């Protein structure tokens, strides 16, 4: 399921992903796609549920990690997985997103890996040419 938006790279104990986007909004979307392809065998979801998410962090690096941890929580606690994101507010320390996706019955869905969390280890959003790139280490 790897694509232009993300790819998985080697990390001894866990799984690291390189995520890319032209904008911060795209980068957050790519990171979400990377997460869902890690946790679900088939990461496609329907557009039947909506959820607002707002996060405040201390900078763009932590905002990305906190965003992923919010999605991880919603996935395991409520079975929510999203395929579309509309960012009503987004700067280096704050986001307000409207997320569209599906509420899954996780016991009926073929899972891939259990992701404990997205870590802050080496998490850094940097600009490479026209694109934003970040590395995320997931604890699995």
């Amino acid at each position: 399921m790897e694509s232009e938006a993300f790819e998985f790279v080697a990390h001894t104990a866990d799984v690291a992903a390189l995520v890319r986007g032209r904008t911060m909004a795209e980068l957050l979307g790519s990171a979400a796609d990377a997460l869902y392809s890690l946790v679900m065998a088939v990461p496609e979801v329907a557009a039947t549920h909506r959820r607002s998410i707002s996060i405040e962090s201390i900078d763009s690096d932590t905002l990305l990690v906190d965003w992923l941890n919010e999605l991880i929580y919603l996935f395991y606690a409520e079975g929510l997985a999203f395929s579309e994101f509309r960012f009503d507010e987004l700067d280096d320390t704050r986001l307000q997103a409207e997320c569209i996706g599906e509420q899954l019955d996780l016991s009926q869905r073929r899972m891939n890996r259990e992701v404990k969390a997205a870590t802050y280890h080496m998490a850094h959003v940097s600009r490479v040419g026209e694109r934003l790139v970040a590395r995320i280490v997931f604890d699995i």
Partner: protein
Amino acid sequence: MTMLRKIDDYRWQIPVSHRAGMRVPGLIYASESMLESILEDQALEQVVNVSFLPGIVGYSLAMPDIHWGYGFPIGGVAATRVSDGVISPGGVGYDINCGVRLLRTDLMTADVVPRMGLLLERLYRNVPSGVGSEGRMRLPKQEISRLLVEGARWAVEHGFGTSDDLDATEDGGRMEGADPSAVSERALTRGLPQAGSLGSGNHFIEIQAVADIYDEPVATALGIYQEGQVLVLIHTGSRGLGHQVCTDYLRMMERAVTRYDISLPDRQLACAPVESPEGRQYLSAMRCAANYAWCNRQHITHWVREAFAEVFGRSQARLGLQQVYDVAHNIAKIEEHTIDGRPVALCVHRKGATRAFPPGHQSLSVRHRAIGQPVLIPGDMGRYSYIGVGTARAMRDTFGSTCHGAGRLLSRTAARKMLRGDDVAAALLDRAIVVRTGDVPALAEEASQAYKDVADIIEVVQGAGICRKVARAVPLGVIKG
């Protein structure tokens, strides 16, 4: 290699001059032949990073099963002064009180092998396992608060095991100072449905046979009498509750780092003074998660006993299904250690490391005081595991700590590229090791080739005197989560 100075055949030092900001040297327990793989990734950089933690004493330690983690290396030990040092949730990890528990039986290999298929089937049915697995219990909220305070004792009070089990568990299966109000609603929501489940990844239940006994008197004291005797090893932790506690408090610590003006080389090391409100609150929540994990292993123990009783048509007592010991290998504890001849209260972080207290230590139960604390060191599912005991040297040199397992050699991604899960299962079966799992492709990640040889790890800890080996066991049957 240039950063490392050889001390002896088992110890290598990274001097404080290696990088500005190091407060103590790094000390790596490894043989020369193991260094090559240790140097391949960024594990040693992580040992250096940990040495930046305010209040760290002695060394930033790495056990021989060290590998690259996030923040702390896996196999890392760091002790900080309670008076002016910090506590770091990253020094415990997301799977708080991930640990192992060993049961012994009066059965022999020949009793178990003919019924292995049925036994694994019953175990697989009795113990919920796999990604996102949910437990068999539905607990009301007031009960979960009691569970978080009482740990394994809660399970025993509700008929899951005996007080003997508690006596053979680190801290009696209950950490003092657990405060459920420090655990978020989110952690409870994520953790409640999973109480009493094995989980996935490297978690397992393994049926083993004793292969070698190195120290007969100690083995006998632990109920291990002869080669071929059947043991059961359980490896799991605090599931989603622990994962969410760590996530919650790392966010809090990110802010605390600024508030207390702490400078760190890696954000995942985020921390707060042990005695600060943030530090105290994290410790209270971490203790709840640790108690949840002990309760989890206590429940699983009960269901393992039920499965054995059902398959062999004998009571648990007649099967001799007693607990040898239970250790935590991802945890932070306030302990008293001797520094420069004086007793000092320290916060000892063990991330992928096992407590290894010596004979005579007052925190051990009476029956273990003569032999030292049992240490359980699982290898990979194709080779063997070890049972050891703690030593006075460990108390002096490593804050009473030793290794926790084999340590990864290959990344999970590399293992999946190199191996196929069904081939791994077939190769194990050729060697009479039966595997039952709901996720065959994931077996590739847990294959022997993905891990260091735990015998090499044991040689180092034994050689360095920070663990004394007692017995070795080989796998017969495995449930992989």
